[in-house]
């Protein structure tokens, strides 16, 4: 009964050790110089974290980056589980495996992924707490529970974070994963995901759920254990949203988030060539990219990495290419 530990065990201090069989990561702290301007491997910024929350506006490549980070951390020797919350699965394509359907799927050495159904997670709490099938059915069928599960703010999000908490064995010191990469819902919801433990702790107060929420709040809010990665594209709307999100994260406390600017067009050639529609669009896109990169450089106080647009279909080949570039520190920022 995996959930039971959430109700009965107190959170222990200390970080878990890296899994055996791979290279050991140095313990990184989030630094504020842009990763792209140094030889620093940005992966070091996420070393030893138990939870890496990948968030950002829809359509910016969040799932791709979650897959990149999952692969990279697994290659670095950690046992990684990537969790996807979107009911329409796409992570499996990026990892080159079969869809999860809510089950755990092995995606390579030390790497697994799972599509989470938040409601099912919440139901699991009920099953775990009520050993009698009769009672369980009664509670699950009760309209109060139904409406509560649908409407009570923060409960589903709490269940998602709780799942990650259990996977890494944050309370017991030993779980099936060293690190969970969480492909969070698009920004607004991504933030409510991180805010959920505090919200529930406050709303519910005492009692097992309140205690659990309190533990999860301490865990998810500890920058030594949980990191946030904000994915964006160097375009007006996604950048505005990324900056807002960065601001909200700073207010929340819990360390600087790592910014990944995705899908950059390459720098323009110095000589002017005869214009054709393709060159014209390249110029337009790159010019926009540079303007937005400058805006991010001015407005983002934490570390940041830029990744290029590549002529590759969505899938494991793209993920691998991006992983190598990510570990190399990404593209120059200007």
């Amino acid at each position: 009964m995996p959930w039971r530990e959430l109700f009965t065990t107190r959170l222990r201090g200390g970080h878990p050790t890296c899994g055996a069989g791979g290279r050991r990561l140095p313990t990184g702290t989030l630094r504020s110089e842009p990763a792209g301007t140094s030889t620093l491997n940005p992966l070091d910024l996420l070393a030893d974290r138990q939870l890496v929350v990948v968030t950002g506006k829809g359509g910016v490549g969040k799932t791709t980056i979650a897959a990149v980070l999952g692969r990279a951390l697994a290659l670095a020797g950690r046992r990684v589980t990537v969790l996807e919350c979107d009911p329409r699965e796409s992570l499996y394509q990026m990892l080159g495996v079969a869809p999860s359907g809510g089950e755990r799927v092995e995606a390579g050495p030390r790497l697994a992924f799972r599509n989470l159904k938040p409601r099912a997670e919440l139901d699991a709490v009920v099953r775990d707490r009520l050993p009698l099938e009769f009672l369980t059915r009664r509670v699950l069928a009760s309209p109060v529970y139904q409406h509560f599960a649908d409407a009570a703010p923060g409960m589903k999000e709490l269940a998602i974070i709780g799942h990650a908490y259990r996977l890494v064995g944050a309370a017991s010191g030993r779980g099936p994963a060293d690190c969970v990469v969480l492909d969070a819902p698009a920004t607004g919801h991504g933030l409510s995901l991180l805010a959920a433990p505090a919200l529930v702790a406050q709303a519910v107060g005492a009692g097992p759920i309140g205690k659990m929420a309190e533990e999860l709040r301490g865990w998810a809010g500890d920058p030594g254990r949980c990191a946030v990665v904000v994915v964006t594209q160097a375009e007006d709307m996604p950048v505005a949203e990324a900056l807002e999100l960065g601001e909200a994260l700073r207010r929340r406390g819990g360390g600087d988030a790592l910014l990944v600017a995705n899908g950059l067009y390459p720098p323009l050639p110095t000589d002017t060539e005869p214009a054709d529609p393709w060159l014209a669009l390249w110029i337009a896109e790159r010019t926009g990219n540079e303007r937005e990169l400058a805006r991010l450089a001015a407005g983002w106080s934490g570390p940041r990495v830029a990744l290029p647009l590549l002529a590759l279909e969505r899938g494991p080949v793209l993920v691998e290419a991006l992983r190598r570039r990510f570990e190399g520190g990404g593209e120059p920022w200007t």
Partner: protein
Amino acid sequence: MDLSRESPRLVVVVGSGGVGKTTLAAALGVASAAAGVPTLVMTFDPARRLKDTLGIGAISGDREVPVAVERGELAASLLDARATFDRLVERYAPDPASRDRILRNRFYDELAGNLAGVLEYMAVERLFEVAAGGRYGRVVLDTPPTRQAIDFLEAPRRIVGFLDSGALRIALKPWFDEAGRLRPAQRFGALGRRAERFLDEVVGLGLLRDMAEFFQAFAPLYDGFRQRAREVETLLRAPETEFLLVAGPGEERVPDTLFFARRLLEAGMRLRAVIVNRLHPAPEESRRAELRNADPRDGRALVRWQGERDRRGVEQLRALLAELALIEVPALLSPPQSAAELGDLGARLAVDLRSTRAPVDRPRAR
């Protein structure tokens, strides 16, 4: 769709987030005004530039503001779910005391911002307020940037299901009396009490009390609210309402687009056309072979690769959508900076829309 005609009076622009829906809705609004129909564009969360172009923002709140256009009459408004919800409560609350009870309730506070579908529902709700005002011949409604986008259609039903929950009120009774005080459980015997105790633990009594209070306070509003939600449902399926589905370019988005188109049709919505936005220019046929693994430093080759990907996407969509019109909108070198530039985009759209068939004349998709 001929924008100079009276119908459609409501154009709902739907699609996933980040596909340029809001810009196209605004462009369509300018074109509609230019065609002689006083038009209102209702939008969520537009980009800074577009906000500036339309002259909406923090100062205007969710009021309608006139937009300076060359021809015709255009207004724009920004949708604010919370403000609309508050107004609704004010309208349907029987007296100031019950209004304040709801507005101050902590559960309402969370609900108004967090319940899935509230934003979508409020969009339609606000639309109703405007339609009732009768000042505009046409409303172009941009929809919230949901990943699934389909949420929008299910919102009225879901909200009503939630608020109209006699079930919930009854279910909450064992815990609370009319005054919202906790009452001892008596109804279910020992086993039942155990289940109840568990629910108490899970929900937390504070939150449960807030919920009970909220639903009691909301009770006088149910009828008005339910009635309105039914009207909203009817409006979405009305003969004078038409839907435009905006899709991103590229092969990998085809399944999403198809899924959404099918859902709209199945739900009985009158889908006029699918607009594939921001298409990269297709490469010359002689170059197609060399596109794979293009040099990542060669931006021109990258754009050609995107163009090829987009071309294949459109080809697949055309084959799959059969009778449904598909409109191609190329990627612009810069987003429209002024009402005039929005108008240019809108005028091109209007030309393409004119040749599309009305949903009723089209054989129903299987």
